[in-house]
């Protein structure tokens, strides 16, 4: 118990350090570093949401870009001022019922999540009867359908022209607040009896059913919750960029989140967090790969695209040689330090959340 309390203390201290770091960052960092930092938080939300279905429930879903798109458009259309909308919809006027719809940021953010969740629920009810690759391709198809619909409904979404001038609400505190809330929600969820049901479904659906778990319900709830988070993540992304269009939400976007989840460890909350931060920062650091490379002796010509090759190889290497990713399905815990000998041995530390 003492160990437990000590770990709680460590966690609180770590939280405080993080908050202090964010304060420092928000005040002194230049806008570029801050932008990357905030993108990290958004990818944390997105990675956690994908991990909830793919990692914890064992449903291979590839429809995340679709839910993000729905969230981003919902929040954008709710928060843009009527004047902004008029500027944007210069080709075809906006549908009258939308023109004056206006909400403050937080309700709009929640609405973005809710609309995405509703869609997730409506879609989940039929397609979650499918398994494995069928589910993967059906959800992927669903995301494509969303994108096609967004492109073609010009008087609602402005079609291919996209929207610009979204209010830049997604400040450091908002995005990291959302990331912290998502992480807390996930930690709470996996420890609850519901979380155990999720993992039971993942590990053996038939056995879980035999144990009296309503497998289908568990799947739908997990899928809906994940859609909510994806919607919120999409909305945050829109408010960071302040412009969105349907082309943003292609399968590539889902793929980059999948990359984070796989690298971090499928079924690990801390893995997803570390993966999201690591990949986002690496993506920026490896930018030099796309330019000309000076090796001192030889000058290599610029090979645009090399960076993505490196990332694909990284993903393949992880899948082939370290399938469990950075964290496997375990979690970071303070007792790791005591086991590593950095701290006095505590005896019976509780290992991980899972």
């Amino acid at each position, binding site marked *: 118990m003492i160990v437990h309390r000590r770990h709680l203390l460590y966690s609180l201290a770590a939280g405080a350090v993080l908050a202090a770091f964010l304060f420092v960052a928000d005040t002194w960092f230049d806008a570029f570093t801050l932008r990357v930092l905030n*993108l990290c938080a958004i990818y944390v939300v997105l990675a956690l949401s994908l991990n909830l279905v793919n990692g914890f429930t064992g449903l291979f879903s590839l429809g995340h870009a679709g839910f993000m798109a729905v969230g981003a458009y919902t929040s954008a259309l709710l928060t843009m001022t009527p004047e902004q909308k008029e500027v944007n919809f210069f080709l075809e006027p906006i549908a009258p019922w939308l023109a004056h719809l206006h909400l403050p940021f937080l309700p709009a953010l929640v609405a973005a999540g809710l609309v995405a969740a509703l869609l997730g629920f409506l879609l989940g009810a039929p397609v979650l009867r499918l398994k494995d690759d069928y589910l993967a391709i059906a959800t992927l198809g669903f995301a494509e359908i969303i994108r096609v619909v967004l492109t073609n409904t010009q008087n609602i979404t402005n079609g291919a022209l996209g929207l610009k001038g979204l209010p830049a609400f997604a400040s450091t505190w908002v995005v990291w607040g959302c990331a912290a809330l998502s992480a807390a929600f996930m930690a709470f969820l996996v420890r609850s009896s519901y979380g155990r049901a999720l993992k039971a479904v993942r590990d053996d659906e038939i056995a879980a059913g035999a144990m009296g778990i309503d497998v289908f319900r568990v799947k739908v709830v997990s899928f809906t919750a994940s859609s909510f988070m994806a919607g919120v993540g999409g909305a945050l992304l829109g408010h960071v960029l302040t412009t969105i269009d349907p082309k943003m939400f292609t399968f590539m976007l889902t793929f980059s989140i999948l990359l984070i989840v796989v690298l971090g460890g499928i079924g690990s909350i801390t893995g997803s967090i570390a993966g999201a931060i690591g990949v986002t*920062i690496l993506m920026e650091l490896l930018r030099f790969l796309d330019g000309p490379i000076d090796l001192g002796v030889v000058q290599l010509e610029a090979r645009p695209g090399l960076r993505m090759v490196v990332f694909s190889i990284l993903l393949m290497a992880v899948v082939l040689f370290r399938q469990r990713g950075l964290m496997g399905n375990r979690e970071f815990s303070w007792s790791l330090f005591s086991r590593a000998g950095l701290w006095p041995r505590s005896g019976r530390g509780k290992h991980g959340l899972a």
Partner: protein
Amino acid sequence: MKRSAAVLPVLVALALVGCRGGTKQPTTVKLGVFEPMTGANAAGGAMEVEGVKLANELYPSVKVGDKEYKIDLVVVDNKSDKVEAANAAQRLVDQDKVNVVLGSWGSSLSMAAGPIVKDKKIPAVAMSATNPLVTKGNDFYFRVCFIDPFQGTVMANYAAKDLKAKKAVIIREVSNDYSVGLARFFADSFKKLTADPAAILAELNYNTNDQDFTAQLTTVKSMKPDVIFAPGNYTESALIIKQARELGITAPFLGGDTWEAPEFIDVGRQAVEGAVLSTFFATEVPITPTSKEFLDAYRKKYQKEPAAVTALGFDGYLVARAAIERAGSLDGTKIRDALLATQSFPGAAGLITFDQDRNATKSAVIKVVKDGKFTYLTTVQPQ
């Protein structure tokens, strides 16, 4: 696990170290070149960068006050992706501390950079982004090309007056802002010119990367239009025209400036002969002394004919350089004001004057594909 605990702080630290820029007194002027080098828009990006680099070779320095500054180009790839584009733009203004941003090919990528340059008060000059939204409401974004409404009118005029067309069909790339915008402006002015509200027989759509258009085209054939307006990506457009000819459609095809890429002819071959397009610049008719200078330098360096957007890249650089010189300062707002005052600046692709929306008012050129080459047809002046 231990690794993860160790890796995180290291990554963060690396990022911070890697990202910190020095704050020394500038000895050079930096122009950020913000272009897609990979992804869907890579071809366009490469052509603009060619023009910017050529201009930089010819005019490598600028006089600010009484001091001569070397001009450094900082080229970043925005990957034809909005999130990446925003990161890249932020990096240019923040890390690289550029004085002016040039680019980007692709209006939606320019729009991702819009709020960032505005926020930092760094002027940006787009070269060939024709979507009106790029500069609308952003007093730091300029462009050295005309915008879609003008281009749509030019082609409608050509169809109604030169071709004496009465009925037209539009085939548009619905997922492409450029195509959707241009199609609308063409339709509006074609209807006005023919005084026939039903002059547009149909507006058919396709999506980027589609390759089979036989269903749309068979429908078009049954409508017997006098002319077909099909602005869009060069690859898809070339395939459309090829399939149309295979189905026996003989009506002329009209398009916009995006067609002017070697791939359009490479893919379309014999089928695209006779296709007519509006664009910014023709090598056959140098408009200003700068045009000739640009052409000579380009031909000498690359041994081929430049694309129109390459000329615009050249112009973007020169306009920015001239504004810095006139501003006599590296302050963003002052450069912006100097840009606004640009009057009849002789660019390679024509005289540049910015209107109150920071768009260049300038002439358009109509070209036709003849013997596998884009050949000059006529010049259209703005009203």
